[in-house]
């Protein structure tokens, strides 16, 4: 009886501390929440479409996001959240959210190794530690399974955006790390810039001669044929192995840009669609 009373006394503040109304601004935090049995009252509009969001999030209010603050603060306040799971991308909006008495927690891993710890962190914040541990273990196991049986390690150049010399994904970006984990030998390996992206000299591209070029253009489906043709006509890229062997690909969702709980699935997709390893 005494033990029960003590347990109730200890758990009560924790239960009170766990916020009930939560807004998740990134696909990672939104999918993590529903993965541990918490339905948010609002989610952020995902760049590149909502395809990667869990079906359990259907019908949840979607907030448009824009630089530099993230959500419109009036729309956010209307949802009356106690907690916002945000991203460093929208860091500038955090002080305003806090001034509205909203707790803000940043959680958007930019490396695969950060996925499981971040899931556990969210579980702790929302009072679902056990479920979070289970989900983190499941995600880790899925990543390990997705990496099994890698037969070859093609040299890969991953590009962001369009333009005459687009930015390349570095190892310290989500997409760069993901392609490396999928068995790609990143052409930009060894380079490190704070943002995870850098404009790479075409001389280096010619010298390294990538087997595969993957472009993440941020474009509508209608634009893909034009972008693909432009890339394949690039006088330098078309003489690389990727150009010669017709292995210049477009990735038009946000799977190489933003983390989520489907990391294993994305690794399998990268292996089968692009790396063929």
């Amino acid at each position, binding site marked *: 009886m005494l033990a029960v009373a003590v347990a109730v006394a200890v758990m009560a503040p924790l239960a009170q501390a766990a916020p009930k109304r939560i807004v998740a601004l990134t696909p990672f935090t939104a999918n993590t929440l529903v993965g541990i049995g918490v339905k948010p009252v609002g989610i952020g509009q995902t760049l590149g479409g909502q395809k990667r969001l869990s079906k359990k999030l259907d019908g949840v209010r979607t907030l448009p996001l824009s*630089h530099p603050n993230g959500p419109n603060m009036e729309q956010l306040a209307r949802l009356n959240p106690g907690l916002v799971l945000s991203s460093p991308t929208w860091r500038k909006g955090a002080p305003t959210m806090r001034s509205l008495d909203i707790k803000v927690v940043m959680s958007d891993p930019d490396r695969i190794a950060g996925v499981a710890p971040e899931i556990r962190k969210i579980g702790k914040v929302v009072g679902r530690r056990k479920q979070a541990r289970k989900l983190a273990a499941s995600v880790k196991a899925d990543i390990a399974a997705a990496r099994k049986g890698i037969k070859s390690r093609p040299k890969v150049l991953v590009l962001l955006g*369009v333009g005459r010399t687009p930015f390349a994904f570095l190892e310290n970006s989500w997409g760069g790390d993901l392609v490396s984990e999928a068995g790609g030998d990143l052409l930009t390996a060894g380079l490190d810039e704070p943002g995870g992206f850098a404009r790479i000299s*075409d001389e*280096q591209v010619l010298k390294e001669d990538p087997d595969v070029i993957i472009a993440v253009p941020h474009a509508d489906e209608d634009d893909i044929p034009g972008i693909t043709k432009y890339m394949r006509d690039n006088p330098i890229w078309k003489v690389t192995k990727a150009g010669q062997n017709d292995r210049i690909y477009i990735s038009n969702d946000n799977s190489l840009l933003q983390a989520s709980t489907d990391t294993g699935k994305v690794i399998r997709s990268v292996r089968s669609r692009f790396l063929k390893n």
Partner: protein
Amino acid sequence: MVVRRTLVVVAAAAAALAAAAVSLALGAVDLPLSDVIDALTGSLGEGSTRQIVLELRLPRTVEAAAVGAALGVAGALLQGALGNPLASPDVIGVTGGAGFGAVLILIVFPGSIALLPVGALAFGLLAAGLVFAIAWVGPDAGGVGKLILAGIAVGALFGAGTTAVLTAYPDRVQSAIFFIAGGLSSDGWRELEIVWPYFAVGFVAAICLMRPLDRLALGDDVAASLGVRPRLIRLIAGVGAAFLAAAAAAIAGLLGFLGLVVPHVVRLAGGTSSHTFVVPVSAISGAALLMAGDTLARTVKAPIELPVGPFMVALGVPLFLLLLRRAV
């Protein structure tokens, strides 16, 4: 005075030749100098070294020289024609228009990315056309004040359009950063093939205007008494500068600083404002400055390429301030 001018011409030409040589010799990939020379003289066989020198470095060096010369001459033409030391391609709306055209393609129509130089060129010229149309209609048609005010208004209009596009597509902004910051690319000869006629028209106009601009510098009334039609000269100079600046923006993005500073550096160094001196030496100096800046931008953190704008400022501003200090 003649000795001083000759020295400036020789120094500018030597700087341009040195910058071109360094631009061809240095890059992200270390190549022996002998291989670079062999590639340029055609005595190197097929292979990546030949490709790097002939398809990457050579077109880029030529582009840098052409863009630098064009912006230097555009600035000299506008400062001379408007009698205003602050005149640059920004003033006639070209920079704002070209920026809008490029951002429109990069952000809204990325599927038509091959049209990027055409978009920048077309909107740069459209903006300049609007400025001239507004400035040459109604009272005080062709007046300097009216032209500058029209340029500021049209530039603001296109600048607002650019901001609106960037705001509407925040996830695509990355594609436009390098164009806005200003920078050359290793895109072979494709862009020069599109814009060279506009460079040609602009340079020919500049050559033809050197003496009329000197007369215009004496004041509209004196110039008119010497047989020059001030408003016509201003219009031709403005159109020539618009062609040069729009073609430059189509290749290298927004590098307005160069057009503003280079003619001043040339005037201060040569001790004269004569356009027969300022226009050609601005072309050589602009070419030298951009070739040097671009080489720095693509080698300092190689193989990462940085925007060229900050490097040009780092190279040009100390020289400009030094000359300005001596002149005052």
